[in-house]
C-alpha cells in the first residue's frame, strides 16, 4: 500500500520517531520579575488576557485577536514597549484551522522583551497595527504575502516579496518546498503564454543529470558510466556515440561533395 502523506502539511517530517518518545516542553514559569508582573497587571486591565507566562526570559501574553490594538497600545504607552521588533504568523491550519500571530516587543529602558500571541481562524482578518508602529507597514505586508492573512486598515496591503500576480502563499504548510504547478510555470506562462509549456518543457531540477549537448557544463560529457559501475573501469577516452558527426560538417571528406544524390 502506498504510504500515507498528509496533504494539509507537506513539510518534511522525521522518518523515525520512537513510539514512546514524548517531546519535553521548555519550562513556562510564572512571572517573578516585578516589571513583568506590572506588565501583566496593566495588560489584563485593558484587555482579556488568556494566558501569561515567562518562556526563556521573555514574557508571553496570549490575547484575543480583536484586542491586539488595545494590548499593544497599553504595552507601548503604559509599559514602555516602544519598539515592535518583529511580527509574523505561524501556520496551525492543519491542526486547529488557525494562524498564530506573534508580536515581539522590546522595552529599551527596562531591557525586557514581551511576546504577544493571538490566534485567528483561516479566513479571519486582523486589525493593522500601523497606527501604533510604522514597522507594520512592511511586516504586515510580508505576513499577508507569505500566509494570506488579511490585515484590516493597512495603508498598502500588497504582496511585498513575491510578485504581484503570484498565486498561493509560500509559507503555508500546504505549499510544497519546491513550489506548486503555478510556480514552476510562472515565467513561461508570463513571457510566452500557457501554450508554450510543451515547447519549452518543464524546468530540470535533477542536479545529477548529464546533458551531453549542454555547451555550458560539459565536464562530464562522454564520461558517463552505468549506475553503480566504477568510473575507472569504463573506457572514457572515447565518446560512446559519434555525436560530432551529427552537427559538424566534415570538410575533410573530399572535394566530391554531391548535394543531390540523384546525380
Amino acid at each position, binding site marked *: 500500500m502506498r504510504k500515507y502523506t498528509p496533504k494539509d502539511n507537506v513539510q*518534511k*517530517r522525521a522518518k523515525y520517531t520512537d513510539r514512546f518518545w514524548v*517531546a519535553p516542553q*521548555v519550562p513556562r514559569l510564572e512571572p517573578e520579575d516585578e516589571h513583568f508582573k506590572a506588565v501583566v497587571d496593566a495588560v489584563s486591565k485593558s484587555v482579556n488576557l488568556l494566558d501569561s507566562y515567562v518562556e526563556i526570559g521573555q514574557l508571553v501574553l496570549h490575547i484575543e485577536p480583536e484586542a491586539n490594538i488595545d494590548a499593544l497600545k497599553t504595552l507601548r504607552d503604559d509599559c514602555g514597549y516602544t519598539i515592535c521588533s518583529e511580527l509574523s504568523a505561524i501556520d496551525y491550519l492543519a491542526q486547529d484551522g488557525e494562524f498564530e500571530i506573534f508580536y515581539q516587543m522590546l522595552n529599551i529602558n527596562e531591557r525586557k522583551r514581551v511576546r504577544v500571541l493571538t490566534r485567528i481562524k483561516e479566513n479571519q482578518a486582523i486589525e493593522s497595527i500601523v497606527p501604533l508602529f510604522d514597522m507594520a507597514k512592511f511586516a504586515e505586508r*510580508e505576513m499577508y504575502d*507569505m500566509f494570506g492573512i488579511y490585515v484590516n486598515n493597512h495603508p498598502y496591503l500588497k504582496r511585498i516579496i513575491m510578485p504581484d500576480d503570484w498565486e498561493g502563499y509560500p509559507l503555508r504548510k500546504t505549499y510544497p518546498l519546491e513550489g506548486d504547478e503555478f510556480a514552476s510555470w510562472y515565467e513561461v506562462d508570463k513571457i510566452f503564454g500557457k501554450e508554450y509549456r510543451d515547447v519549452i518543457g518543464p524546468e530540470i531540477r535533477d542536479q545529477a543529470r548529464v546533458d551531453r549537448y549542454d555547451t555550458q557544463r560539459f565536464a562530464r560529457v562522454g564520461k558517463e558510466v552505468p549506475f553503480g559501475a566504477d568510473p575507472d573501469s569504463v573506457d572514457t577516452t572515447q565518446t560512446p556515440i559519434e555525436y560530432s558527426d551529427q552537427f559538424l560538417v566534415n570538410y575533410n571528406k573530399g572535394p566530391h561533395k554531391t548535394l543531390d544524390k540523384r546525380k
Partner: protein
Amino acid sequence: MQHPNKLRPFFENLNFERDDNTMVINFGPQHPSAHGQLRLILELQGEQVVKALPDIGYLHRGIEKMAENMIYNEFLPTTDRLDYIASTSNNYAFALSVERLLDIEVPRRAQVIRTMLLELNRIISHLFFLATHALDVGAMSIFLYAFREREFAMDLMEDYCGARLTHSAVRIGGVPLDLPDGWLTSLTDFIDRLPEQIKLYEDLLTENRIWKMRLEDVGIVTPEQALSWGCSGIMLRGSGIKYDIRKEEPYELYSELDFDIPISDRCDSYGRYRLYMEEMKESIKILRQLIGMYHQTDSQLMAHAPKYISAPKEEIMTQNYALMQHFVLVTQGMRPPKGTVYAPTESPKGELGFFIRSEGEPYAYRLKCRAPSFFHTGILQDILPGTYLADVVTIIGSTNIVFGEVDR
C-alpha cells in the same frame, strides 16, 4: 497609459505618464548603488522626491521555508546567505537561538573564538560599508583603501575556517575548530595596523568639504521614526537612542568586556558615518582583550550535551555510545524541546534574531529571521520624500542594507 503585452506585462499599477508635472522614475533593481536588488519607485517634482516606494523581493530564496525542511545543523550553512557581508553574525544568531532553546552552556574557549569572529566580522562589514558608501557618494580612493584592509580581515577568516564570505564558522554548541597556529599573531598584526588605516580614512573624509556637504543633514531619521520603524544598530544609535544589544542584553562574553557604545544625536548620514568609524575602534579594543582571554581557557570547543550535540571526534572513534549518538544526530537530527525562542543579537547591521517555534521535531516548525535591513529598507519610504534625487544614493548607502537578509 500602458499597453501590456506578453513581453511587457502590466507594470505595478503605476502610471508613468501623468497629467501633473511630477515624473515617476524607476531606480534599480540593477542600479550599482542600489546595494544589491533594491528597486525604488520614485515620484519626482523637479529634482525633489515626492513619494518613494521601495520594492523588494528580487533576491527571495525562501530561506524561512527551507528552514522548515532542514534539520537544525543542516540549516546553519544556509544562514551564511542572509547577510553575506558578515556571515558569522548570522551563523551565530541562529546558533544562539537554538542553544537558548536547548538550554546548553558553550565552553569558554568557544565563546572567546566566537566573540573574536563576531568582532572581526563587524570590522569586515563596517569596512565594506565605508567602501561602498564612499563609492556611492563619489570617493573612489576610500573604496580601494577600505577593501585592501577588508582583504586582510578576510584572510584571517580564511585562515580560520577556509572560507572568505560564507564562513559557517560557528556550530550549534560551540565552534568546530580551534584557532590555527599563528592566527593570534596575525590578528594582532592586523589590529595593530588597522587604527592607522582608520585614521587615514578619517583624515580623508571626516573634515572633507565635499563629504560633509553630501552627508550632513541628509537622511534625517528622527528618534520617533527610528523607534516606530523598529530600527536597530547604528540606525537607532545614530538617532541618539543608546541601545546596543551587546551591552544591554549581553550574550557570549560581552558582559565581561570593556567597550563603549558610541551614539550620535545628529540623526543624519554624517552622524552614522562617524558611528561606523567609532565602532571599528571599539571592535579593535574588544579584540585586544579577547586575545588575552584566549590563553586562559582550556581546550574544550563543543558543549557537552549528548542528547543534542555530537561528542568530540576522539570519543566517537573510541566509544560505542558516542558513535551511536553521533549517528542518530547526523541522520535524524537533534530534537529540541517544544517551545518558542527569540534570541536577539547585535549584528553589524542591527538587531538580528531568529524566532524559532519548535514542536519537538528535528525540523523547526516555524523559523522567522528578524533581519535589521528589512525594516531599514522600509523606512526609506518615509525618509526619502522631501530629499533630492542625488541624496537618495547617499541615504540608501547610509542605511547599510544588504539584500540577502531583506529578501531572505
